[in-house]
C-alpha cells in the first residue's frame, strides 16, 4: 500500500522533473553538436575571463549580502526599538525592485547630471571622478542591494528561533560579546546563512538584468551575446553547460557543508527575549539600517516617484499602461500558483523518500534556476515546437518556462515546511480511513500552509520581475511591466520606464505583506 502510494508520487514527480530538465536536455544536446575546435575556440577566447568575472561577482555579492543581511537581522532580532516593524519592512522591500531597475536607476543617478553625480561634484569637486559603476564592484553593489533581503529573512528567522542556553553558557565562561557572536551565534546561523547565500549566489549566476545594463561580462551576458549577436545557439548552449556545471558544483558543496552542520535544541530551552535598545544604540541602529534602506529602497523609490510624477503631469500614462499592469499581475498569479502546485510532488517525494533517485530529482528540478532566462526560453520553445506543437502560441509556453525557471523556490520552501511535519500525524489520518489524496488535502496541506504561502510569494515576486524569458516567450502583443521597462529604458525614456517600475513595486507589496504576516505567525 505504502509502496504503491510512493510509486504514484514517484511517477508524478518524475514527470515534473522531466519538464524541469527540458532546458538541460536542450543544452546538453546542443553542446554535443559543438565541434572540438569550437569548444577550443570558446575556451581560448572567453572561458577563463568569464569564469573569473562570474566567480568574482558571486564573491562580492555573497560578501555584500552577508554584511548587509546579517547585521540588519542581528540588530532587529536582538533589540526592540522604536520603529522596529518599519525597519523589518525596509529590509524586505528591496525585493520588489528588479536588478535591471536597480542598475538603470543607479546608472542614471551616478551620471554627471544625475542626483548622486551632482551631489558628488558638490561634495568633492569635479577633480575627483564619480565612482564608476560599470565594473565588477558596481555590479556587486547593485546585486547586493537587490539580494541581501533573502539573507536577512532567513537569518532573522533563525536568530529569533535560537535558544539562549548556548550563548549564556559562553557568557558564563567569560566570552566577550564579539566572541559569542563569532564562536556561538555565527556557527548556529550557518544553515540559514548557507541557504540565504545560496539563493543570492544562484540569482547572481543567472542574473541578466544588472550585468547587461552595466556591461559586466559574466556567463549570462556572454551566453546572451552568443545567442543574439551571432545567432549561435550551439555556442550559447556550450557556455551554458559550463555555467550549469559551475552552479551544480556550488550546490553540491553547499548541501555537503549544510549536512555536516546540524544543531538541535530541545523545545523547552528558553527562547531569546530581545533587549530594549538604549538611547545610544537606538541612534546607531537607525543610522546603519537607515543607510541600508536609503540605498536599497528609499533612494530608488524617490527616483521612481519623481519620474513617474513627470510622466503623470505630462499626461504620458495612457490606458495601455493599466493593461500592462494587469498582464503582469495576472501572469504572476497564474505562474506562481502553477509552480507551487507542480513543485508540491517534488517536495513531498524528497521529504518522504531518501534515495539517490529523490536526490537526483531534487537537483534536476533546480536546473531552471541556474540557467540564464534566454536559454530556458530557447530550450522550452524548441521542445514544445518539436514535441507538442499544438500547445504553441498563447500563454502555455511562457508559463512552462517560468515554472521551470522558478520551481526550485517552490520546492525548497514547501520541502522545508514538510520536514517539520511529524509523520505520525499523517499516519493518524491514514488510520482514520483517509485515502492518500484526501490525506494530502485535509492533513498535509493545511499543516504546511505557511511553507506553501512562502513558496507562492517567492515565485510570484520573481515571476513579475522576470525579463529575458518573458521578452522572448510572451504571447503576441502581451506586454508586461518588465517588458515595457525594457522597451522604454532601451530608448532612454526615463519618464516612461519609471511608472512601470513603480507599478511593479506596488504590485509586489500585497505579496510581501502576505509573506510577512505568515512569518509573524510562525
Amino acid at each position, binding site marked *: 500500500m505504502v509502496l504503491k502510494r510512493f510509486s504514484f508520487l514517484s511517477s508524478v514527480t518524475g514527470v515534473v522533473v522531466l519538464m524541469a530538465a527540458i532546458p538541460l536536455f536542450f543544452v546538453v544536446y546542443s553542446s554535443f553538436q559543438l565541434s572540438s575546435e569550437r569548444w577550443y575556440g570558446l575556451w581560448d577566447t572567453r572561458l577563463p575571463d568569464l569564469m573569473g568575472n562570474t566567480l568574482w561577482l558571486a564573491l562580492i555579492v555573497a560578501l555584500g549580502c552577508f554584511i548587509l543581511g546579517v547585521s540588519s537581522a542581528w540588530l532587529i532580532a536582538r533589540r526592540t526599538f522604536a520603529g522596529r516593524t518599519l525597519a523589518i519592512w525596509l529590509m524586505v522591500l528591496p525585493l520588489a525592485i528588479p536588478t535591471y531597475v536597480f542598475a538603470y536607476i543607479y546608472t542614471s543617478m551616478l551620471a554627471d547630471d544625475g542626483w548622486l553625480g551632482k551631489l558628488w561634484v558638490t561634495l568633492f569637486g569635479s577633480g575627483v571622478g564619480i565612482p564608476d559603476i560599470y565594473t565588477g564592484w558596481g555590479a556587486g553593489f547593485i546585486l547586493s542591494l537587490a539580494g541581501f533581503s533573502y539573507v536577512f529573512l532567513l537569518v532573522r528567522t533563525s536568530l529569533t528561533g535560537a535558544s539562549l542556553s548556548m550563548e549564556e553558557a559562553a557568557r558564563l565562561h567569560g566570552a566577550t560579546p564579539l566572541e559569542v557572536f563569532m564562536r556561538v551565534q555565527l556557527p548556529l546561523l550557518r544553515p540559514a546563512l548557507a541557504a540565504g547565500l545560496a539563493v543570492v549566489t544562484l540569482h547572481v549566476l543567472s542574473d541578466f538584468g544588472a550585468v547587461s545594463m552595466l556591461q559586466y561580462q559574466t556567463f549570462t551576458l556572454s551566453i546572451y551575446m552568443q545567442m*543574439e*549577436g551571432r545567432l549561435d545557439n550551439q555556442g550559447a548552449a556550450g557556455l551554458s553547460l559550463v555555467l550549469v556545471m559551475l552552479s551544480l558544483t556550488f550546490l553540491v558543496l553547499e548541501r555537503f557543508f549544510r549536512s555536516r552542520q546540524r544543531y538541535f535544541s530541545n523545545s523547552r530551552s528558553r527562547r531569546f527575549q530581545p533587549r530594549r535598545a538604549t538611547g545610544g544604540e537606538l541612534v546607531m541602529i537607525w543610522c546603519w539600517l537607515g543607510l541600508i534602506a536609503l540605498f536599497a529602497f528609499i533612494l530608488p523609490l524617490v527616483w521612481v516617484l519623481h519620474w513617474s510624477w513627470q510622466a503623470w503631469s505630462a499626461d504620458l500614462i495612457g490606458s495601455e499602461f493599466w493593461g500592462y499592469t494587469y498582464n503582469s499581475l*495576472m501572469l504572476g498569479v497564474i505562474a506562481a*500558483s502553477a509552480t507551487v502546485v507542480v513543485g508540491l510532488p517534488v517536495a513531498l517525494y524528497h521529504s518522504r523518500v531518501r534515495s539517490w533517485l529523490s536526490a537526483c530529482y531534487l537537483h534536476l528540478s533546480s536546473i531552471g534556476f541556474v540557467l540564464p532566462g534566454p536559454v530556458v526560453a*530557447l530550450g522550452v*520553445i524548441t521542445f514544445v*515546437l518539436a514535441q507538442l506543437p499544438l500547445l504553441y502560441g498563447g500563454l502555455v509556453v511562457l508559463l512552462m518556462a517560468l515554472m521551470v525557471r522558478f520551481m526550485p523556490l517552490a520546492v525548497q520552501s514547501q520541502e522545508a515546511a514538510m520536514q517539520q511535519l511529524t509523520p505520525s500525524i499523517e499516519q493518524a489520518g491514514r488510520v482514520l480511513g483517509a485515502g492518500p489524496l484526501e490525506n494530502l488535502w*485535509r492533513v498535509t496541506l493545511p499543516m504546511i500552509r505557511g511553507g506553501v504561502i512562502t513558496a507562492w510569494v517567492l515565485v510570484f515576486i520573481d515571476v513579475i520581475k522576470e525579463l529575458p524569458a518573458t521578452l522572448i516567450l510572451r504571447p503576441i502583443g502581451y506586454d508586461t511591466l518588465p517588458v515595457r521597462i525594457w522597451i522604454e529604458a532601451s530608448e532612454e525614456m526615463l519618464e516612461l520606464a519609471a511608472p512601470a517600475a513603480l507599478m511593479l513595486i506596488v504590485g509586489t507589496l500585497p505579496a510581501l505583506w502576505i509573506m510577512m504576516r505568515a512569518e509573524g505567525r510562525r
Partner: protein
Amino acid sequence: MKLANKLGSGLLALLMAMPVVHAAEDELVVYSGRSDKFVKPVIKAFTEATGIKVVLHSAKSTALLNKLRVEGERTEADLYLSNDAGNLQLGSEMGLFLPLPVKVTDVIDARLRAPDNSWVGLSARARVLVANTASDSGFVESVFDLADPRLKDKIAVTHSGNGSFIAGVTVYMLAEGSDKTRSWLKGVKENSGGKTFNKHSKVVKAVASGKKAVGLVNHYYIYRHLDAHPDAPIRVIVPDQGEGGMGVAWNVAGIAVSKYSKKSETAVRFVEFLVSEKGQKQFAEVNREYPARKGVAAVSVIPPADSIRAATVAMAELGKHRNATIDLLEAVGMP
C-alpha cells in the same frame, strides 16, 4: 481545507478569465526591433487608411530573428521589422522571408534592399562623428582619425556589442580591409581608455559636456540631443568625404514578410504602404532618418542625402560579414 479549496477554485476562475491572446483573422503581427514610438504613428496611419489592424510585438531585433528561426512554420509573425540591415540579410539567408513583388521594391534604392527582394530598406541612417566645438578636433575628417594619438582619452564610442557599432565596423572592414580596420580598432581601444558607453545618447552627452572631444554615433542621436539642449557646443562631422575617402557608412531599418505568414497578401499591402511617399515620409521623419525611397526628401535639419557620399558597401553585405566583424572585435579585445 477551506483555504485549499479557495485557492483551487480561485486559480480555476483566473485561468478561465485569462484573455486569449491570439491575433484575429484580419490582424497583422509585426515582430519589431525598432522603437515602438517610431513605428506606432505609421501603423496608426495604415490602420486609418485600410482598416487593417496591426499588432506590434517589440523586442530586440536579433532576439526576434532567432525566435522567427526557431518557430519556423509555426510563427504567428507576418512581418519582421529591424533597425539593422544585417539582421534582415541573415534572415533572408536562413530562408525566413517571402520575396516581395518587384513593383513594391523598385522604388527603393537598389543598395538599400536585398538583391533577391526578400527585404526592403525603409529608412537610412549615417554613421557620423560628433565633435565638441571647443576641442582641438579640427583635423578630424575621417572615422579612421579616431585612432589618432592626438585624441588619446578624448573619444567616445559605444561598447562593441552595439548593433550599430558592429554594422559600422563591418562597412569599414569591407571598404578598407581587415588589416587597416584591426589596427584602427586597436587605436580606438587605446584612445577610449578601455572605457565605452552603453548608449549613443551618452556618447553625445559626453562630447557636449566637454568630457570627450569626438564621438561616433548615428546621426539622429545628435539632433535628439540638440532638441533638449539647442545651444550644446557640438557639431556634426560627416566623415570620409574627401577625395579617395570611403564615404559614410550607412545602415537601414527595413522590413520583410515572413515566409510562413498566412496573410502574406495583406502583409505586402503594409509594406506597400510603408514604401509609398506618404509612408516613407512618416516612417523616416519621426526619427529624422533618410527615407529609402528615391525622391522623398528627409527633414531639413539634417544634411540632405545628395550632399553626402556614402560608402559603396551594399546593405546585404552587413549580414554576410557580421560574424567576421565580431571575430575581429573579439580578437582585438574591444570592450
